[in-house]
């Protein structure tokens, strides 16, 4: 297989939005008194979240993804996510993660490479041009968001360390700081969180390392200061708060696949026809909207990524 094979995706109009336009929209929306969330939440958001740790809302009407889906509100993205090192409760990760120290930060990139390096976050922000990418994010639990990430293609970082010919997979490891992470001491999960991609998946243009959301640096609960985003896979593949990346010859162990391989495949590609024993994978709940919508093969990125899986039975290698 040609490991360098990938398909570039054109940046959509409206993907890159200058901050002053955000701000003018913010003004506009404030005047309108509109919050980009479901009616249920809209009625309460201003009072309900005022004493919370959630950031000031950033209006989400500046663009859509390439399918025309409107963006999930910044408050929802920051206020609702899975980060089990802090807690299994998606609604209060933001509080428990707020004291997580992400500065200074370094990411060690090594393994089967000619030029192993340890990058500080500043190195990364200086070396790699940060771009905006609007991606759908589909959690294996059956909910989804549309998120305007700031980041850069992982392939640029991999090119900098020069993988050797033996490298076939990329292994990722999250930070594990038990004294700052309440949930890490429960013994319920074998932390540190590990994830992995096949090298050609890692080299795909859609695969990015994200450093921000809505033009703001990542918040701790969203995986600060740097995380993976693989939009055609279930959210748990997009490992947060990365401290180590290694090029390896064999398929690396990953946390959820280790715990329950019958439920969480290594590939974990979004696939409505591969069912899960607990959650519907045929439909999903878009956060901030009511009702269910159909889940798309490869989360709507099938055209771009299906060539990666030619000749594979996706119901076996799920």
């Amino acid at each position, binding site marked *: 297989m040609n490991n360098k094979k990938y398909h570039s995706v054109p940046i959509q109009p409206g993907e890159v939005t200058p901050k002053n336009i955000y701000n003018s929209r913010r003004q506009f929306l404030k005047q309108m008194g509109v919050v980009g969330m479901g009616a249920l939440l*809209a009625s309460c958001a201003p009072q309900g979240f005022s004493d919370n740790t959630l950031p000031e809302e950033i209006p989400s009407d500046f663009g859509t993804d390439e399918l025309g889906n409107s963006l999930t509100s910044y408050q929802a993205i920051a206020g*609702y996510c899975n980060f089990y090192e802090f807690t299994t409760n998606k609604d209060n990760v933001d509080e428990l993660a707020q004291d997580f120290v992400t500065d200074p930060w370094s990411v060690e990139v090594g393994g089967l490479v000619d030029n192993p390096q340890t990058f500080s976050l500043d190195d990364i922000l200086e070396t790699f041009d940060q771009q905006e990418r609007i991606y759908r994010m589909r959690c294996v639990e059956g909910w989804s968001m549309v998120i305007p990430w700031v980041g850069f293609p992982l392939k640029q970082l991999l090119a900098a360390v020069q993988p050797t010919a033996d490298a076939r997979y990329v292994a990722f490891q999250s930070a594990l700081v038990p004294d700052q992470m309440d949930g890490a001491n429960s013994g319920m999960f074998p932390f540190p969180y590990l994830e992995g991609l096949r090298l050609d998946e890692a080299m795909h243009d859609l695969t990015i390392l994200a450093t921000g959301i809505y033009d703001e640096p990542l918040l701790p609960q969203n995986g600060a200061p740097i995380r993976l985003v693989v939009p055609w896979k279930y959210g748990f593949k997009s490992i947060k708060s990365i401290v180590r990346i290694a090029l390896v010859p064999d398929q690396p162990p990953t946390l959820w696949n280790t715990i329950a391989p019958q439920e969480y495949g290594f590939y974990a590609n979004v696939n409505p026809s591969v069912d899960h024993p607990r959650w519907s994978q045929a439909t999903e709940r878009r956060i901030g909207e009511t009702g269910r919508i159909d889940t798309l093969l490869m989360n709507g990125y099938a055209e771009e990524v299906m060539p990666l899986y030619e000749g594979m039975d996706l119901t076996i290698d799920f």
Partner: protein
Amino acid sequence: MISLLPLSILTWLALTGWLGFNPVETAQRWTGRVAVIWLLLSLTCTPLNKIFKLPRIGRLRKPLGLYAALYAALHFAAFAVWDYGLQLDTIWLEILNKPFILLGLAALVILSLLAATSFRYWLRKLGKKWFRLHRLVYAAAVLVILHYLLSVKGDLFSLRGNYLPPLIASGILLLLFILRIPPVNRLLGE
């Protein structure tokens, strides 16, 4: 009356938006937990009455059980009505494909049957059969606990995942069963 408190809180939270960013999931989880707790409380009344001679507690068995059935029904409604908008074909597929839903539904059917026959009229009409019928509550309790255990993310056999709450519920149910073993039960009365 106290049994209506969780429902009131839930409604109030729903109206004020405090159910969070995924209100359907929060509502499902909340009603499910209340149903489990109320069912276990209902099954605790008789042993408590036996041990401590508290007939007032003993009489709570029936209302607590009825409210457990109510919350189980609300739990199913949150799934079928709120989440799936009563799209019967999709709901049916989900039930068939996910054993834990099937177990929960079986428990709900039993609890509904028991709630429907909880009136004095049925007690008089069925006589001895009524008591046999209402022993099905133990089957419902087992189904509910299995449903709870299987609904948790992780792996039950290696106990990796957030299993503490359903395991505590399992432990309590086991204890309640032990207290009902005839020799143990006789000891309680003394």
